[in-house]
């Protein structure tokens, strides 16, 4: 019982700063997610239309290289280039999440049966009508599952962004390690998990809605 009352005590004293950490965390994660989606999905689509196999291969290689760099190392590399704080954290996390979403978008677009595309062409769809009414809706399950997985990763990686002074729940965890404060570590972790679950839930709802157009 002691533990619980102590924990409530902790929350009532610190809730303002805890919420600040959480807000910071969400701002970083959501910025990365939005940039990733808006850059990677169109890029993935563009790559399916690209005839040149060499350029395509090269792009996947580059995305792959970012993915293989350990997260901490990638964040560290950002310091000499972009300094510390929000921007380098966002850039590093973006580079890191490039590949999973790119790969899913590409696979989703490739999964559309060429006969369906031919049927759409033959019925008189223009390029963009075809993209938005046929290809994207059909690739949607792949793209959305890519977005969901990537989002969950990003929220968890954002915890590391505290290492280069970007703040977020990582700060809470690091401080907890410093002070040897279990509550801090636990709170930071549990909140990161909850954000991830919540976002996954919302995206799941969105996917259902979109696929019913």
């Amino acid at each position, binding site marked *: 019982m002691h533990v619980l009352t102590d924990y409530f005590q902790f929350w009532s004293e610190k809730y303002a700063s805890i919420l600040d950490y959480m807000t910071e965390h969400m701002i970083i994660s959501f910025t990365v997610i939005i940039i990733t989606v808006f850059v990677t999905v169109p890029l993935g689509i563009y790559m399916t239309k690209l005839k040149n196999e060499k350029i395509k291969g090269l792009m996947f290689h580059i995305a792959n290289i970012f993915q293989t760099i350990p997260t901490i190392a990638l964040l560290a590399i950002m310091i000499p280039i972009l300094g510390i704080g929000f921007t380098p954290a966002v850039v590093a996390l973006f580079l890191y999440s490039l590949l999973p979403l790119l790969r899913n978008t590409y696979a989703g677009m490739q999964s559309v*049966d060429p*006969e369906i595309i031919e*049927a*759409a*062409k*033959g*019925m*008189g769809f223009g390029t963009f*009508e075809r993209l938005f009414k*046929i290809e994207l809706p059909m690739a949607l399950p792949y793209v959305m599952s890519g977005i969901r997985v990537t989002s969950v990763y990003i929220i968890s990686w954002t915890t590391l962004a505290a290492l280069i002074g970007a703040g977020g729940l990582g700060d809470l965890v690091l401080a907890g390690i410093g002070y040897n404060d279990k509550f801090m570590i636990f709170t930071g972790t549990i909140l990161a998990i909850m954000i991830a679950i919540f976002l996954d839930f919302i995206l799941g709802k969105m996917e259902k809605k979109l696929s019913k157009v």
Partner: protein
Amino acid sequence: MIELKNIDKVYEDGFQALKNINIAFEDGKINVLIGPSGCGKTTTMKLINRLVDYTDGQILFDGENIKQMNPIELRRKIGFVIQNIGLFPHMTIYNNVATVPKLLRWDRQKIRARVKELLHMVNLDPKTYMNRYPSELSGGQKQRIGVIRALAAEPSTILMDEPFSALDPISREQLQDELIRLQREINKTIIFVTHDMDEALKIADQIILMKDGHIVQKGTPQEILENPANDFVKEFIGEKRLGRRELPALAELIRTPFISTLDDSSTEHAIEQMLKHQVATIPVMEKNGKYVGTVNLYDALSNKDKQLTDLLDPSVIPINEIDKTEDVLRHMKQGKDTIPVLSSDQNMIGLLDQTKLFHVLHEMTGGECGVK
């Protein structure tokens, strides 16, 4: 009318898929492209809605060169049923059928009415099927939807690439019948690809038989069956169908014995004979068996006092026993019920058994049509 003039098609990899193709697809006709796999049927069809570009020649759509037309507008004017149907899996049946009307920005009410009308036309209840997805339909139902989707925006021309190929024989027959019925109702120009000769013979106004990228023969089913251009055509049609089309020799169609009268008997007697045997005409012969002519009951009754030989009906023309049955058919257009058959030396052999002939014709055409 769509005209293909001296069309060549060489694919990017250098493969020549079509060689000097000349076809005229007439308005309101069902044109069937047929031939072995890989002979260029689909390629020919896709030339028309510009999914494939030809490398040489010219295609005219109602006299206008299709290269001068906007491909997207052209495609919206031409219904298209692709090989393997190609329904959009993420759209309801309603939205699938409404595709082209929506692209053309028809009024909502008009689209709704049109979709319902089309579903009724192929015997699918709109209430039940409109909101289903393609995966919730049987193969035959999907093919029906594929066909009406192509009809939705009332195109004057419809391209159909093996639309019934994946069906069991019964549904296939049904859809063929529906297509023929539809064609009569809505009078479209249909270009239909198949490699099933029975299907082609059944539905076609014009058959275009292809092989290795060129046209081997084109014509009506009748023409192709009667005059196959070469062994390839014969083989493709199949001995069975060719054999079945051959009419029996005239000798098998002669009716003996027959009622006749001699040229020296009285008119009274001839009338008696005709009444007794309930016939309206009677051939007149000499004692030695030579044919003199034919007298009909009407002339005889009104000229009882005249000689039989004065009453001969000039419109009855006898045929010769060595004539071909096909020629005899043509001859029969006069519609006489008595056609005497003579030997080369003018002896009367018997009468043409018309009942038997019609029976044979009926069997040959599967009981569907009479003599063309």
